[in-house]
């Protein structure tokens, strides 16, 4: 059987996505063709080249990097070295940047998911005045470009004495991540078996118990999707960090990398391992949770 994934345009049916298992073997009904293999092979090669180039370059000696192409490196496999990585992690602030990125990303991934789940829970399971208005208002905010809100947000954080601090950027990322979190939770909660929750209510469970004992354990797929989404978004973010975290000591990898590239005083033997090191964690998470990432994209439009 072919999968029944739906585009975002067909929203009502989307909720199935989370529960459907991936059918890996399905191919087009007309079957495979040699030409398809060749064209796709070429495209995949092109798409892989930039990442591969960065990785190979990052493990080449400085002298080689600036005189010969990375593709010649395979001729001298013995010259590959980790020296660049050692240099980059111990100097140039990349090691600190890595820690800062972690310190920003972990709470900024956890908080919006928690706050979003708390809000999506009554919206999905109970009826009360203002429910729809609040839901639609929060979801609509997903569209607002961050550039439109960042200047006043910076002023608000200044008034709270939180600009340039980690809690400041946690709050900002939490707010910016909320619309997507609430949207995906709402979509997911809508497909949970409501009879279970009714039964729990009859048994005398209060809403807090239902949330912690019943709803949360069932929400693992959507939690995984949101965690990977939000983590990639925060870890890779440059704009918010640049503006809200206007504090050189606390700046994450992206900001440091960007200023390294701008200053041009550090050579490419610094740039390439620094860039690859910054990609390492997202790539690992991405490869491990790709399934959930894809489901997340399908279940709700990605934020920008």
């Amino acid at each position, binding site marked *: 059987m072919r*999968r029944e994934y739906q585009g975002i345009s067909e929203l009502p049916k989307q909720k199935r996505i989370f529960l459907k298992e991936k059918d890996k073997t399905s191919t087009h009904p007309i079957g495979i063709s040699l030409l398809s293999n060749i064209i796709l092979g070429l495209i995949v090669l092109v798409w892989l080249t930039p990442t591969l180039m960065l990785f190979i370059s990052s493990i080449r000696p400085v002298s080689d990097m600036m005189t010969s192409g990375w593709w010649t490196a395979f001729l001298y496999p013995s010259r590959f070295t980790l020296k660049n990585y050692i240099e980059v992690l111990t100097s140039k602030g990349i090691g600190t940047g890595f820690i800062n990125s972690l310190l920003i990303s972990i709470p900024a991934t956890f908080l919006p998911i928690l706050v979003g789940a708390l809000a999506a829970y009554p919206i999905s399971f109970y009826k009360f005045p203002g*429910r*729809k208005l*609040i839901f639609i208002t929060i979801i609509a905010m997903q*569209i607002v470009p961050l*550039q439109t809100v960042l200047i006043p947000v910076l002023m608000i954080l200044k008034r709270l004495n939180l600009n340039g601090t980690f809690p400041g950027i946690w709050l900002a990322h939490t*707010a910016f991540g909320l619309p997507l979190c609430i949207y995906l939770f709402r979509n997911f909660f809508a497909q949970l078996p409501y009879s279970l929750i009714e039964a729990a209510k009859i048994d005398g469970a209060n809403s807090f118990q239902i949330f912690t004992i019943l709803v949360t354990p069932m929400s693992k797929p959507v939690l995984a999707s949101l965690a990977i989404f939000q983590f990639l978004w925060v870890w890779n973010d440059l704009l918010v960090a640049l*503006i809200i975290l206007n504090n050189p000591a606390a700046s994450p990898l992206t900001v440091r990398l960007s200023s390294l590239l701008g200053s041009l005083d550090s050579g490419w033997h610094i740039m*390439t391992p620094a860039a690859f090191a910054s*990609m390492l964690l997202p790539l690992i998470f991405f490869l491990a949770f790709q399934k959930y990432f894809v489901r997340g994209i399908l279940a709700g439009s990605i934020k920008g």
Partner: protein
Amino acid sequence: MGQPIFIGHLPEGSEFMKSLIAKYIRKKRLGWLEYYLWMAPAIILTLFFLVIPTLQTFGLSLKEEVTFSEREFSQGFINELAVESGAEIGRNDLIQEVSGWESVVNGALNKYKVRIASDDINEEMTVKDTVELLTATIYQARQARDGGLQFCGFKNYRRMFKDNAMLTAFRNNLIWLLFFTTLTVIFGLLIAALADRVKWSTLAKTIIFLPMAISGTASAVIWNFMYFKDVNTGTVNALLNLVYSLLQKLNLITGGNFEGIAFLGRPDLVNIALIAAGVWMQVGFSTVIFSAALKSVPTELIEMAHLEGANSLQIFFKIEIPIIQSTIVLVITQMIMWVLKVFDIIYTLTQGGPFNSSEVIANRIYMTAFNQNNFQYASAMAVILFLAVIPVLFINIRNLAYEESVRE
């Protein structure tokens, strides 16, 4: 939920309220008040970090910094002193020796609606000292009154149309809109369709999706290296060189060696070079969605067409594309949103250069706000950006309202 905490937070002496709430809780009738407690963090954060800031940006865009020229003020002040006293006045004359000085000072104070203490101007002060005191007072008062801002109508918006960097940014966003959107849709469709027809589609898609996990900053590093002008180290130029020398060998072109192209240094090529990097980053997104949409095309339909003798291309263009039409529209709107906000890769790769030729709105906003410290002008640009996404906002809300109506 945590009712005891709730009760504890009530002020002392409201025993009646406490017992009332306790009664409601016992009966599990806290009702919608409880639901609002669940949503409170989300509501507060959305309000203070999204809703109010959006409105503030609108407000800020209609203001400008108060222009107060100290030089003009001091010139005017001295002129008035001269008129009042009927004598030539120098900056170093003692102020109180000028006849009629009090009325001139009071005139200035009234004009700018500020006050100073009566003994602030003493007999030792010169005209220059007085001007300095007055300017400092006026400046402070303005800052305190409304952050040194005054309403200026649509001045910031009109300014954009005379600002060459901003006009280039508008043009470039349009170029991005056209080429980036077209390329991501075509490549996304192509890859999704091809992946359907090979046995290693999981691997292929993983590689295509991979750049989505890479930050704009790291992508900028990658593409800076890819676009090196040197034909020995720059990957793109090395490939071009390969083609060039091949053509040379076949005597199709004559002339010297290939010199390499500085993609990021040439105003005519920089946008296309950046768009290519953007497509590399974002094609995974359209592939994900198209791939799922193509899988949802009914198998029977395709098999039937196949039996009728339609070939693969005909099936793709005549059956599959029309069926996933709405998904294509959706991907286009998503890509438009991405393009309007594109920032990281441009900020890191070119900073809008060379000579502003790769400027985009998002980069202008950042530069105007944080390099030129003009938050008001930057806000006006941000409002334009916001207005550009409004149509997408409406499509989304309509979809959402439809979804809600289906659900209930």
